[in-house]
């Protein structure tokens, strides 16, 4: 009997060891532990059967020792191996490839559809999705306040205007503006809008290669050599940046004339732009993240800091708590440091599909989750 039990234990253990040639020692341990536990459970059941069958006298053809014990212990051991394998795989899937595993306190609010874009101003959040624009409260427990821009098609960009209580909405057909509280939507410009940004004195909108800038009562346009994909107002440097398919371009507005300023070679499409007091960072999608130290921008040799390989796809970037956060889709929310060298510090896999990031006036990070159609505030625990 002991021999049979030993065989029943040895077989799955052996298979667990051979199957896990690339696994670390701990995983092998888990498989062995689970196999042994499963085999023991089988043996206990066989023991139960032994007593239940009047010490085997009424057991029929399957005797407790020669049949039930090896069969049940072997089955238990195999089940243990497979359960351990599943647990290992699940753990592997949840473990970040780089950096620590971060965990945050999440406070979210559900939207009617996946958010395409959102913006935060004071205590308000404006989010745009397939089902229109919704204004939410950015209070401790976020909640929807009102809907705006009902019935409009192809809306995918939104930004609060800082010079008046309204929002700028970009879509595949036009650029619109509407009051935060009341009023109908007004069409500002026709044509598909690829990027918008707002400043304390005006707004910027891009359609294809054309960039329109409004400052106070003046408006002007400037054409870029490449398609514009993103836009950002750098509050510290007080200047506009637009991202194209391969560069980051400064847009200036002097004497009511829009003009191209400094151009930074990004070598990849610029999907999103963000800035802090010290850095300007952009998300490139599959090409990772690039960043430039603000103080070096006026120097002759501009040093580009790059994060490549991880995350595999950078959807959006934002600075919060002195660190760079990266929306990496299904890979989660990445936390990175840029100084002294660019590196990933941690990854949170709590949200299934992180695509949008914004920081509010209090420095708190907000995340747009495409899969759950949620806006989530991310607080350190």
């Amino acid at each position: 009997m002991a021999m049979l039990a030993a065989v029943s234990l040895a077989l799955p253990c052996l298979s667990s060891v051979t199957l896990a040639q690339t696994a670390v020692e701990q995983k092998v341990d888990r498989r062995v532990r689970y196999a042994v536990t499963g085999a023991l459970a089988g043996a206990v059941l066989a023991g139960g059967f032994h007593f239940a069958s009047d010490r085997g006298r009424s057991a029929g053809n399957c005797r407790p020792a020669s049949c039930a014990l090896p069969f049940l212990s072997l089955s238990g051991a195999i089940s243990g191996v497979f359960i351990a394998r599943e647990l290992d795989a699940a753990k592997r899937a949840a473990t970040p490839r780089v950096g620590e595993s971060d965990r945050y306190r999440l406070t979210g609010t559900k939207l009617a559809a996946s958010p395409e874009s959102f913006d935060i101003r004071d205590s308000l959040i404006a989010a745009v999705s397939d089902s229109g624009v919704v204004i939410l409260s950015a209070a401790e427990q976020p909640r929807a306040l009102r809907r705006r821009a009902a019935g409009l098609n192809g809306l995918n960009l939104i930004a609060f205007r800082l010079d008046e209580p309204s929002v700028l909405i970009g879509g595949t057909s036009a650029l619109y503006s509407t009051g935060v509280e009341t009023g109908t939507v007004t069409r500002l410009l026709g044509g598909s809008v690829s990027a918008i940004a707002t400043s304390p004195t005006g707004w910027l909108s891009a359609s294809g290669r054309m960039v329109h800038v409004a400052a106070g009562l003046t408006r002007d346009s400037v054409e870029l050599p490449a398609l514009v994909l993103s836009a950002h107002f750098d509050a510290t440097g007080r200047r506009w940046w637009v991202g194209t398919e391969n560069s980051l371009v400064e847009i200036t507005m002097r004497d009511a004339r829009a003009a191209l300023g400094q151009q930074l070679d990004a070598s990849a499409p610029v999907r999103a732009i963000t800035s802090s007091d010290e850095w300007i960072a952009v998300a490139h999608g599959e090409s990772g993240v690039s960043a430039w130290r603000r103080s070096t921008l006026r120097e002759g040799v501009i040093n580009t800091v790059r994060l490549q390989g991880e995350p595999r796809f950078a959807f959006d970037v934002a600075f919060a708590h002195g660190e760079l956060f990266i929306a990496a889709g299904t890979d989660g929310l990445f936390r990175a440091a840029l100084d002294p060298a660019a590196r990933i510090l941690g990854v949170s896999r709590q949200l299934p599909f992180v695509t949008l990031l914004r920081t509010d006036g209090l420095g708190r990070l907000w995340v747009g989750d495409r899969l759950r159609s949620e806006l989530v505030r991310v607080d350190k625990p």
Partner: protein
Amino acid sequence: MPFSPWRAVRRAVLPAIIMATAPVTARSVGAQSETAQLVSASLAKLDMGDTAAALSMLKTATDRYPQDPGALYWRGRLLARTSASGVGNTPQRLLAWRLLNRGSKSEADDPRFLFEMGLLRLKTPLLRFEAERFLLRARDIAARVGDSTTQSEAAYELGQIRERRYRTTYHRYSYTGGIFFDQFAALNRMHYVREFLQQSSRPIENAGATERHEAEEMYRAALKANSGHSPSARAMLGLLYDQRRYDEMTSVARPFLRDSTPDARLWFGAALARFRAGDAATATSWFAAGLQRLSTDDRREVLDLGSLLRVGDSTRVAGLADGVRAATVTAFWEAADPLLSTPENEAQLEYYSRVAFTMLNYEDRETAHRSGWRTDRGQVILRYGEPPTVALMPEIITVFWYPETERSFVFSGSLGFTAAVFAGDFRELTEATRAIDPFRLDNLALAHQVDSISHQVARFRGNDASEYEVITAARLDVATLYKGVDLDRSALNWSMRLGSPDRMRLIEEVTVPVTLPSIDNEVMTSAKLIPVGDYRLRMEAYDPGVRNAAARAQVNLALPKMDASKLSSSDILLAQRVADSGRLLRRRSDAALQPIPATTVAQRDTFAVYWENYGLTPDANGDVLAGVKIVITLVEIVRVGNTATRLFGNIVDVVGLSPEGDQTLSISFDRNEPLSGRDRVPMLVNLGLGSAPVGRYRLEITVTDRVSGTRTTSRRDFSLSPFDRPSL
């Protein structure tokens, strides 16, 4: 291959004798040279498709030089790859295993042996679980020795193993009500599937997520080892699509597309991602590139409409000459396009997207001979789109559920197995469904948003018998199109297209400024001179910035040849009432008519009826004498009011107590007027139906030429709306 003792002795002893007796250097050089020649010759045979000759040569090589790794590898590989899974091929697999195993022992750093052994294990019943171990070893050795090809292949195969596991668990449902899914009830009982999914089962959250993640990691590893490994890229597109990761799909496919990959599946997969991401222009271009790269048979099958038509129509289209069939296909897609005003044909893109979906989901190496759209599930997807609900039941039954039409299709065999087929009588049910509803675009948002345009089209003779003047009047119900839209002003694009049945072209385009909120209707009237022929006329109103501001109308316009010598009448044009000026009408323009766009008049309204008579014979004084009979018949009463009233009214209709079918109005009169060189005799009558019942009416005008005794009849259906309803 049967066991032969002599062969065994020959294999074991002869080479040993030869090896022992030959001078070492000469032996090894000569052996290498001869084996290399044999292997090379066998590969040449293989290239020509002569597998038997190749195997024979390789057998000679391994018999003479049993330790030669090249010969062992190629013979083992060929035997392994030509063996089928199942018990019947066991001897061949055993032989392949022995050869590969021998090679792997002598060439421990050559991962190809282990890789082939892994593939062989995948075909071996009961020992499949071992495949993963060999493939992992092959991958690791390949990485160590820098064999990127084997590394990527092994990683891809490992990904496939994980993906199969994922597909068998993805969409998994568990039972909550303690009853099993009954496919027979699903076939026979209405609402069974809906009720079962809602009340007796529930989806298992995150089912298969771990396997999907592992499969993706393996495919990424394969692409990292060999960036040109298109099967891994293709497989990854399928995984990413399940999670709607369209941007990442594009980034995976882009390097291949940049190199103009011949892999049509990659083009289709990338185009699918772009279309779902809302980039229809790129999707159109990439689908076109994918179509070019399909095999001739596949391309013909995808381009033809066989799967989207009823069986009879499909046979008829297949039997057409190439040119006519191509024209028919073009006409089909033009008619299916929700809006011609958009640059892309969304209906066709949706169809190609469905083809791409079937490529990504229902094809694998084992069914490489069978394209995804030819599978049972693929055919359902082509016709009705990706099902909003897919449920994999514990007893390995897959349910496609389309809530909008309350249709379900049940397959036996889980999602992970490409061989899933219709369960029970669902094949017959699917054919019956096809006969009623062969193609639907329920999952195309634009198709839902398009409203219909009320219109009236009337044909009059043109300047001569070779052309017609076609009057169109259409009503743009601006209030309805912009209902609930939070916008102060916008612009509605109005367009008209006309052309032969296979190709329409733009003939009129107008931008109508709209100030909101609007309660006004816009009336678009036009008069076009069109040569004799068969045409399609399409009218569209579209505001791309507003979700529901889209409407269309399509008319088949037959403009037959006219015989100027025979009596005939034009269509009847319904217009706003006009005062009779007493002047002799020479053309329609003399009457200053405002056509009614919707062929709907209100109770107590008076409206004008205008038509033209051609070929009336003048008498000796040059006058024409025509007898006119106007009959208006109530075709159908439209009941208004509460349910009880409508029900009672309908019963009364059935038993014949209501005035349905009665002639509501009948007028006869003679008209005598000078022809005065006119090529037509226009006639204008004002009519009113008072408080006749609301419903559908038929207006019939018969003109009798009192001189020649011939007669002609024209008809026009119209509707009578309630008195308080605003009408044009």
